[in-house]
């Protein structure tokens, strides 16, 4: 059932700022996991039932029509989010049936930063296929 979110599910947070990941070791900064203050919910996309292509297509839809670039995504297991005493709720939208929100953020910003830092620490950065191809070593012809 798509409304039920299991602890071992993967969530993707799209990386639309080049300053949300560290280029030197391809890790995620906590900046990417801070929710907008007026909503106190953080948009993510569940991997469940999606192919890699589907996941990237949803990310491209988010940046389409904006001057932003999709640099990649931060993948994190639901269990790591729950471990920070946050919740993940399914919130499908018209162009993303797998859309979900991370909710339950504490009121104090410094507490939110601590949780974001903990989540970012275990998140895995996945570069877009285009960016990934650019970083591959050149093919050698013998």
């Amino acid at each position: 059932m798509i409304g039920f979110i299991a602890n071992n599910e993967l969530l993707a947070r799209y990386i639309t700022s080049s300053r949300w990941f560290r280029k030197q070791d391809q890790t995620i900064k906590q900046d990417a996991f801070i929710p907008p203050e007026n909503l106190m919910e953080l948009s993510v996309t569940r991997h469940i039932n999606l192919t890699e292509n589907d996941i990237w297509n949803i990310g491209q839809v988010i940046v389409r029509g904006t001057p932003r670039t999709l640099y990649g995504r931060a993948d994190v297991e639901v269990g790591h989010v729950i471990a920070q005493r946050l919740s993940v709720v399914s919130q499908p939208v018209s162009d993303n049936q797998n859309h979900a929100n991370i909710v339950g953020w504490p009121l104090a910003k410094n507490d939110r930063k601590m949780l974001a830092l903990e989540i970012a620490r275990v998140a895995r950065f996945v570069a877009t296929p285009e960016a990934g191809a650019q970083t591959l070593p050149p093919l050698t012809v013998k």
Partner: protein
Amino acid sequence: MATIAMPLTISGYADETKAGAGFVAQEREKIFETLQMSNVLGFAAKGTFQQLDEIFEECSSDGWDGERAKSISGEVLQCAKTFLKSFPLGVEAPEVGAEPDGAITLEWYKSLDRVISISINPGGWLYFAAIIGIKKRNGVDFALFEVSEDLLELISQVAGKVR
């Protein structure tokens, strides 16, 4: 790492005329600006202030992340600059970033277990979170005051000894 402390405020000039104190303040400011341009000592030469201007440009309208991010205001930019100018010279430059709630971030990072992130938020509020080995710290301060000894100590534990 050697540093030079140059407080932004001048006190102890009770016997000086106002004009004299003003002259001293101006000269002190000039020297500080010169040292800020030093490759070894200053955030200016290390490109930090330029990065702040760039991030302000990138994130000056709502929805800058392609979703629901709040824009970074000119006030937040100025607070970040004021805060950084209060640092003693010689501190390693932070990486500049932005958060979806309209804050500018300053991050000192060595590894996933040695990192401190400081947010400069509207109203001049400053929030920080740090992971330094098994130690975890977070707190709140005011960006328009000089950087506290406590924060400097945390930064030094991540980036290397400041004093």
